[in-house]
């Protein structure tokens, strides 16, 4: 079996084992594709000093990793639980100084990933000037547009993550992954050194063979390993597959509001014998 499926890992734990302590890890927002089962495996293996990049913002994945002590820094346009309010572990970690914060804005993250995708060191971007974000980001630069007079413009550095981690509806044995219109996942995969993916199901056929869906497929060129994880984004949702489990998200937000509540939640979550499929 393994000879025919060289990129298919046995388990989410096997994917988590490929993410080293200290890695720069790109993650998707809650509305996109969250590999929550691997997040749990990362916490189970007690990952440390991760540098999270939100593409472009972060939600439950980041809050769990931060609360579990796995995170050294966060670069994102925002971190929140959406309708369920603030991300409590993130908020506490910012206030205590437990994590280093690289506050950003959505298009800077996208441009940084696009620079990495092109293999160039930076990209220019309109807007943003006058924001305090610029003052607090010494790695951003304002220059004069060399093609015009008196036209200041922001330059932002390439964001090259060690690993892009995400969840998608379908993959195939070769490691091709169908993401449909969720093309921020394509951008993440192009920009990162390696990509690890969980999928709802493994397709029998080659996903690139069908022209009707090929444009929504990340080719195996970018994918290092994938694992089967039905309901792998739970309790957040996956477009076309299942909606977010609002009751479960509300239960998390309520529990995590206090450190002791978060600790109890985490113990219970890690102890779940089976992934709630």
């Amino acid at each position: 079996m393994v000879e025919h499926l060289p990129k298919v890992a046995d388990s989410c734990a096997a994917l988590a084992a490929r993410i080293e302590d200290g890695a720069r890890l790109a993650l998707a927002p809650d509305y996109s594709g969250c590999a929550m089962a691997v997040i749990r495996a990362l916490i189970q293996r007690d990952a440390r000093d991760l540098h999270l990049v939100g593409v472009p913002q972060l939600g439950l994945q980041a809050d769990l990793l931060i609360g579990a002590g796995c995170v050294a820094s966060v670069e994102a346009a925002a971190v929140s639980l959406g309708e369920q309010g603030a991300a409590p572990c993130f908020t506490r970690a910012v206030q205590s100084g437990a994590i280093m914060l690289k506050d950003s804005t959505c298009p800077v993250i996208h441009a940084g990933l696009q620079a990495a995708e092109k293999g160039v060191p930076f990209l220019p971007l309109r807007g943003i000037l006058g924001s305090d974000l610029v003052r607090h980001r010494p790695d951003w630069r304002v220059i004069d547009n060399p093609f015009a007079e008196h036209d200041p413009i922001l330059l932002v550095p390439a964001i090259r993550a060690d690993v892009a981690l995400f969840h998608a509806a379908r993959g195939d044995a070769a490691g091709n992954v169908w993401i449909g219109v969720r093309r921020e996942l394509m951008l993440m995969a192009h920009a990162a050194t390696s990509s690890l993916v969980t999928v709802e199901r493994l397709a029998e056929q080659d996903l690139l063979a069908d022209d009707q869906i090929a444009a929504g497929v990340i080719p195996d060129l970018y994918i290092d390993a994938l694992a089967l994880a039905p309901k792998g984004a739970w309790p957040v949702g996956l477009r076309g597959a299942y909606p977010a489990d609002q009751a479960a998200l509300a239960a998390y937000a309520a529990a995590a509001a206090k450190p002791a509540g978060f600790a109890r939640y985490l113990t219970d979550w890690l102890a779940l014998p089976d992934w709630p499929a």
Partner: protein
Amino acid sequence: MTGDARTELLISCLADRLAGCRHVAVGAASPIPAAAALLARMSSEGRLRVSILGSERHNVFTDGSKELFDCAAQGRIDAFFLGGGQIDGQANLNLVGVGGYPRSPVRWPGSFGSAYLYHLVPRVILFRLEHSPRVLVERVDFISAAGTSPAHHHRPGGPEGLITGKAAFRFDRALGRFTLTHRHPGVALADIVAATGFAFELAAELATTPVPSAATLAMIRGPVAADLVQIYPRFATEILTRPSAPRPDGLT
């Protein structure tokens, strides 16, 4: 004015600000602006395109989450709604936190796309339900997005005005100041002055925000609410099921 009546007034008031637009985009966690955009689209007989982040139906983007920003930079989006934990008299927005940075004692999620869209979308409508001195401050603690820019900066966009739960202001980009133009029904000028932490100009004639017509209310409670259920189920249901409120004719 009950909470629901005020919500409907604000939806109608925000929708009026979209007159003449071809394309309005609405960010996440913005139920009242989303309702306003859908109401404006119905009134425009389909001429207004509405892109709502988080919606599968009202979102044609196929190039991932960056496409909205690329569209904005090209001038393909005419209007957007922004808010903030703090908004100051120069229309600076703070979505980051209060009381020092980075270890802000009050910390919010972050700036999202505000720093960018505020500069590039021609008609940015500021909306914040809470009208109080802690929100409308003289000077924000952190500038997520700057209200004004030096004249030589490339800035096709910026704030058009501010609508709150009490009033509506117009923003003068050259002067960098707000002018109070409307108070909502039942709100006294003194109440607005007391609740506003920044100094502002007063319009020559202070108007009262017009209450929505029966036809507008029927659209909000009917097709707009039905359309919103997929994105904001709780909000839409609260508008849909109003047993205590009088209903316009023809609605059950």
